[in-house]
């Protein structure tokens, strides 16, 4: 089985790689972009098969050989694998459907799309309050930016509108986290 950290590593790595190979042309960057999405879908499908067909038990992976909060911990079970395979399939299908606007916008759109998918995958797999917050913010910021740099009319106004509830979503997340922490303390 391929370790699920490779889902994060591939998407984040390609996010850094694509701008550096931009000069190679849109065919090369496009191929790398779609290959990355396909490989991530392949990894999540492998886990989906592992749980749904082979009927394996939930796996918890502690990175760095430490227990949380010192390490990042991921958990994959049947439910997580369903969400992962759905997200990665939707990402691949969406990227194929939006081939024209993605190529028109260039590497910027590809990088933001990869970061968005990475955030969603991390959000599903992580079992750590702190990392949930980090992945949630990655998803939020890449969504605003993706909205702003795609080829839609009046896109910056739309991006500003999506940016505005930033404080409130953080407030709700923090309120929930605090209630959880206070409950645990007593």
């Amino acid at each position, binding site marked *: 089985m391929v370790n699920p950290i490779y889902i994060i590593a591939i998407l984040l790595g390609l996010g850094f790689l694509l701008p550096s190979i931009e000069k190679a042309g849109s065919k090369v960057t496009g191929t790398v972009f779609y290959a990355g999405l396909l490989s991530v879908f392949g990894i999540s499908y492998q886990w989906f098969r592992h749980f749904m067909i082979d009927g394996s038990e939930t796996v918890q992976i502690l990175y760095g050989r430490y227990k949380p*909060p010192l390490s990042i911990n991921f958990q994959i079970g049947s439910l997580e694998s369903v969400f992962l395979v759905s997200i990665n399939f939707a990402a691949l299908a969406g990227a194929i459907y939006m081939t024209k606007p993605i190529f028109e916008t260039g590497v910027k759109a590809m990088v933001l799309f990869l970061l968005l998918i990475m955030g969603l995958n991390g959000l599903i797999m992580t079992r750590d*309050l*702190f990392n949930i*917050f*980090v992945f949630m*913010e990655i998803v*939020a*910021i890449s969504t*605003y*930016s993706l909205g*702003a740099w795609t080829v839609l*009319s*009046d896109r*910056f*106004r*739309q*991006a*500003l*509108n999506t*940016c*505005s509830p*930033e*404080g*409130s979503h*953080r*407030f709700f997340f*923090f309120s929930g*986290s*605090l209630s959880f*922490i*206070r409950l*645990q*303390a007593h």
Partner: protein
Amino acid sequence: MIIGMWGMLTQKNMIKIILGLAIVETGVQLIMVAFGYIGGRTAPILDSAVPVKDAAEMIVDPVPQALVLTAIVIGVAVNALALTFVVKLYQKRRSLNITDYKDLKW
């Protein structure tokens, strides 16, 4: 936080709206730090004053502080991003008034 929300909802100038957003974020962070403190407990630093075996009962949970620290950093990035959008909008129509941008309304 409420002052910031009031600013965001009542102001028409986009820079003032983003200032409101920054005030909301600061308010949320202050609430988080204030409520994350548990009375009678000390800072989450393990030294001679805090034995490791009693640490769970003697120190406050460091997660709220870590979350706020991250939130401050992300908040700066979000404000910078929002200001970028404002600059782009201003370059397009030479106006900072949000009511001048009605293309998305129907």
